[in-house]
């Protein structure tokens, strides 16, 4: 079997086509599912990051609250804030707050008197805020602790606001402020593998883990605020996902932008695709080889049949059958067709010869029947005359000879009758008759037929 055999070529092409189709279908479905899964993973990752940031901010806030609560209990803060008349009071407050700042990780500390005037701020170079607009100060003067968030100095600022007591009276307010810095976002970014940026409602960057965070889609920010749900943007070319999360930090809404890259995942996907392609190719080649050998195994009896048919045809006609088809099955069909044709011709010839032989046989039978019939007439005459001679002759020697002639003539007549029976048999007109006969007479008749020859050879016959 050669590869140029059309069946083999068709099989190879069919297997290759099926392999290509199945590979394409599998790749299409798998890639689409994986693509969606990767995007979903990016979205979930971004969501997890936003939760992580919210938790981190909550932890920072707790830290600010602890610092504020520890500071308000420092000795003499309440007394100095209550009196606040002499420079000594101010310097004492300054000393307490500066010392507390050094001992903590908050960004600043503020002391406000009972008239909501700023007594001291540790970072005096910072732009002053209007105390009246700062939520929590009035409430603290009423004895309530509170927390708030706001944008100060271009950064998200957390404030833990505590009332300051002196002699069981609220005499002022202490605020511990903590800013969400780019370093904090960089820390999360480094640990979670995504770039983060915190934006204000106006689209200003409050903190970012990368300098490239400034380029944002204001429409997406507005949509995130307006729709109150995350806005997802997928860069299908660079396999990057950007999610705009509306987040609430204590009492103000902001947008957290999370940039994550799926390049590595897509690279792994591409590598997996390459491996899958190679495996699919290997399977296709293996399938073709198995298919070809399997075909060869299936067609082996056919090849033997073809060889036998070719041999029979050659023996019948002395010539080979010309092969017109190049395929194995086609060539077998070709040979069998040729053999059938030749056998048909031969059968016709034999039939014709048979008919001629039949005719000849019938003519021969007719001739024999006629001859037998014609011979019976003289035989009857011989038998009749012999009988007449025997009746008027008293010579025992002649009587014996006439008797033998009569027996021989009757036997010959019987033979003629048998020949006539043979003709009837040829003509399928023979009928058997059941008649009584004398065995002794038959035996004597046989003796008379063969005794002469037996005597000539000095043989003696005994019939019991």
């Amino acid at each position, binding site marked *: 079997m050669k590869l140029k055999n059309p069946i083999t070529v068709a099989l190879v092409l069919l297997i290759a086509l099926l392999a290509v189709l199945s590979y394409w279908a599998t790749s299409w479905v798998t890639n689409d599912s994986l693509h969606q899964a990767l995007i979903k993973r990016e979205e979930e990752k971004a969501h997890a990051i936003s939760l992580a940031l919210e938790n981190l901010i909550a932890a920072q806030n707790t830290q600010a609250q602890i610092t504020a609560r520890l500071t308000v209990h420092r000795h003499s803060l309440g007394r100095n804030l209550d009196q606040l008349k002499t420079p000594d009071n101010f310097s004492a407050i300054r000393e307490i707050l500066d010392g507390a700042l050094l001992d903590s990780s908050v960004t600043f500390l503020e002391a406000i008197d009972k008239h909501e005037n700023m007594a001291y701020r540790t970072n005096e170079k910072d732009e002053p805020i209007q105390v009246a607009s700062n*939520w929590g100060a009035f409430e603290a003067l009423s004895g309530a602790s*509170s927390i708030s968030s706001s944008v100060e100095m271009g950064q998200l600022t957390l404030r833990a606001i505590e009332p300051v007591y002196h002699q069981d009276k609220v005499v002022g307010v202490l605020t511990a402020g903590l800013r969400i810095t780019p370093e904090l976002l960089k820390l999360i970014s480094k640990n979670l593998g995504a770039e983060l940026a915190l934006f204000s409602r106006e689209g200003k960057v409050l903190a970012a883990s990368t300098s490239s965070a400034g380029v944002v889609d204001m429409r997406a920010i507005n949509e995130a605020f307006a729709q*109150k*749900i995350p806005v997802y943007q997928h860069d299908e070319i660079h396999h990057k996902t950007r999610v705009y999360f509306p987040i*609430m930090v204590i009492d103000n809404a902001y947008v957290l932008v999370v940039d994550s890259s799926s390049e590595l995942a897509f690279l792994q996907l591409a590598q997996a695709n390459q491996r899958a392609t190679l495996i699919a190719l290997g399977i296709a080649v293996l399938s073709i080889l198995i298919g070809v050998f399997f075909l060869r195994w299936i067609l082996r009896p056919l090849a033997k049949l073809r060889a036998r048919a070719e041999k029979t045809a050659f023996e019948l006609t002395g010539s080979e059958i010309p092969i017109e088809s190049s395929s194995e099955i086609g060539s077998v069909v070709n040979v069998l067709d040729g053999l059938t044709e030749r056998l048909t011709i031969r059968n016709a010839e034999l039939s014709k010869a048979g008919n001629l032989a039949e005719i000849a046989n019938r003519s021969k039978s007719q001739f024999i029947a006629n001859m037998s019939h014609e011979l019976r007439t003289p035989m009857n005459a011989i038998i009749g005359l012999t009988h007449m001679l025997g009746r008027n002759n008293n010579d025992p020697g002649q009587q014996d000879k006439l008797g033998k002639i009569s027996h021989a003539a009757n036997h010959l007549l019987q033979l003629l009758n048998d020949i006539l029976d043979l003709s009837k048999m040829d003509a399928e007109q023979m009928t058997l008759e059941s008649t009584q006969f004398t065995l002794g007479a038959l035996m004597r008749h046989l003796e008379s037929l063969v005794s002469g020859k037996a005597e000539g050879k000095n043989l003696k016959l005994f019939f019991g």
Partner: protein
Amino acid sequence: MPTLKFFALFVLLPFFVQPAFSEELVVPGSGNPEYVLGVLANAFNARQSIHRVVIPPSTGMAGGIRDVDEGRTTLGRAGRPLTEAELAKGLIYTPLGREAVVAVAGAGVDVPAISSEQLIGIFSGKITNWSSLGGKQAPIRVIGKESTDAIRRQLSKQFKDLVFADSVKVVHLDTYLIELLDRYPTSFAVMNLSALGACKTKVGVLALDGIQPSIENIANGSYPLVMEFGLIYKSGGLSPAGKAFIDFIRSPEGARIFRSHGVLVKNNG
């Protein structure tokens, strides 16, 4: 042959019979009807044991629409009727009730009523202290909602020249609004009446232009600020639990719960 038919019937029967499967139905979405639907869900869950309805914290109406549209749930909460664009997604809105949009003040405020002008003045930052409204000396901590919020839309529709000052803390979910109302005793906000039940402190309702936001005043049209809320689902996507829950809301028991929370029942259509 009859045996074969019986066997086929036995095999195919489960495909045609719809047994009452138990279902946990999560209804996400708008924060406006969250509280009253939560009360209804508790009553529904107590009344029957086949289904369980869960009313999770607000994800906003957009969140509810997204969840229903993307098939994460079969029923969502809506703080307003759907827009044409939202209906084009194949979503169906079924109205449940109408209720007053009320001006509220934190537990530390003793002002009983305000006028429309004063409401505009508070939001625009012209009125900053309760003493200007006859109350105690205390700053007004104004809390607002996003411009797309159903209540904010209702406000803007009623008061064309309403502008929010920078001092207004704008929150995007009702949960945060209620949290701030509880945290700041001198706060001020506008919200739907039934959501007041979620407040932990004694947040007070202020009469608007001398009219109390009662069901009677909503019904006779004398109270100006009214909003409608309902449920959303995909066409043909209402589950047995969803249908049972809606039927319960529309039952006399559901109407009673609605009325006790200041909601006027609105029948579909």
